[in-house]
């Protein structure tokens, strides 16, 4: 099958467009599909996508009002700004918008618990112990607030960490 737009190259991308309830199928080559996606990106950018995700949890009217009013004291960005541009204003925004960002991060990454390196200069072993303690605290909190999905994830992380730690105990290994 040849591309519907240029009619020269083989169609490798198949696109279904719905405009005003009219469904339209397009078969495009790589090149024309790229052009098309640039056009679409202009109409529907990543920021919209993130903004859309951010809006996913339907807040009550009262909550809506407070959401609009929340503003980062450090940089002045509002949650509405964030939804518009898809970027946060500064590191403090993460604290300011914590309750809205949690569900968003969960949707994007499938997780809300960091499990990688940290910038703090602490020995790796004690680092893991701190991690474990922090995770146990988080687990307790998640159970109390009945966020069972998060609790299950935290529980798995604890198990994984404990397993790694016991492995390290048996065969000590320098890790960079």
């Amino acid at each position, binding site marked *: 099958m040849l591309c519907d737009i240029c009619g020269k190259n083989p169609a490798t991308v198949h696109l279904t467009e719905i405009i005003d309830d009219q469904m339209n199928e397009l078969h495009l080559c790589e090149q024309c599909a790229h052009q098309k996606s640039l056009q679409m990106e202009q109409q529907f950018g990543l920021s919209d996508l993130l903004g859309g995700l951010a809006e996913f949890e339907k807040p009550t009217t009262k909550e809506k009002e407070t959401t609009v009013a929340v503003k980062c004291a*450090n*940089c002045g960005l509002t949650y509405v700004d964030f939804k518009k541009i898809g970027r946060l204003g500064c590191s403090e925004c993460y604290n300011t918008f914590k309750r809205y960002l949690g569900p968003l991060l969960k949707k994007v990454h499938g997780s809300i618990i960091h499990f990688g390196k940290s910038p703090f200069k602490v020995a790796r072993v004690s680092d893991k112990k701190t991690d474990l303690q922090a995770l146990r605290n988080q687990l307790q909190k998640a159970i109390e607030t009945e966020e069972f999905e998060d609790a299950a994830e935290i529980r798995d992380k604890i198990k994984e960490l404990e397993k790694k730690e016991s492995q390290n105990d048996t065969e000590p290994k320098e890790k960079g």
Partner: protein
Amino acid sequence: MKLNDLISHSSEWLKGSGPNSDIVISSRIRLARNLEKIPFPHWANKNQNEQVLNTITGAAGKVDYLKGTTTFKLADLDRVDKQFLIERHLMSYEHGQRADNKAVIIDDEEILSIMVNEEDHIRMQVMQSGFNLFEAWNIINRIDDYLAKELNFAFLADWGYLTACPTNTGTGMRGSVMLHLPALVMTTQINRVLAAISKLSFTTRGLYGEGTQATGNFFQVSNQVSLGHSEDDIIENINGLIRQIIEQENQARETMLSRDRAVLEDRINRGFGILKSAHIITSQETIELLSMVRLGCDMGMIKGLDRRTINELFITTQPAHLQKLENKTLASLERDVKRAELIRNKLPK
């Protein structure tokens, strides 16, 4: 080092060696980092951006490990210079857009590049030739540690490194592997492979990263998820996926050899023939034909040509590189003529 010194020099990641370098061109790890409390580049005012630029370049200057690096302020570079750095994969297209208070720090081997004030305060990347993500991670991890001693990185214990866009929060890490998959494209299996990749939460992009199309059968595969897994685990996941894609590409190459040998030989030698004899050639056609020639070398159908020469041609035939080589601005047709000449000179007669 001056920017023009780079032109006579070949990037480390192009050398065409390293594990699986027949199918894997390069491996790259990038980390996103930000300074605590100072607004992210898009939200900061001019003074804040300037402060970030000075703080970060100052900190890099204090790190012994970064002694051999050069800092280029984007305000000092012209349009061709910026395009030149983009073509060499040393900075992103986005970074070249608004030049105020931005910089890129590069080492002589072009293994490392640190973009200051891109989407985040720091976007650093390490590139390696071939399938070698862990090596790239080992290098960048060390640089990150050194910089963390000099700078206060924005970090939360539960959410990790904080980035301008929540899609990078957590490790702030993106691992990317540049693959050359001509046989999967020719046997029309590539869409199935790409669909599987996206189902597994990985993304594919073209030769020049975000928003670029796949040309000449090159695909860049990267992780999408940056929170919830350690850096080692993320890399291990990418590696597992890449190993499978390599396996599939090898199988497709075998299939073509046994079933469509004549078609394969025709496409490869026809491409080689055009490149050796053309007097006008666009960069698009160059990439497509070089892809065939590269495959011909991998499969032993073209002799006397090494992978490094082909890899370098992918970069040196790009518009800004041609203009740097000629040391003047060239119109589109002039470039096509110079490009053809360069290729004829580099390829065996």
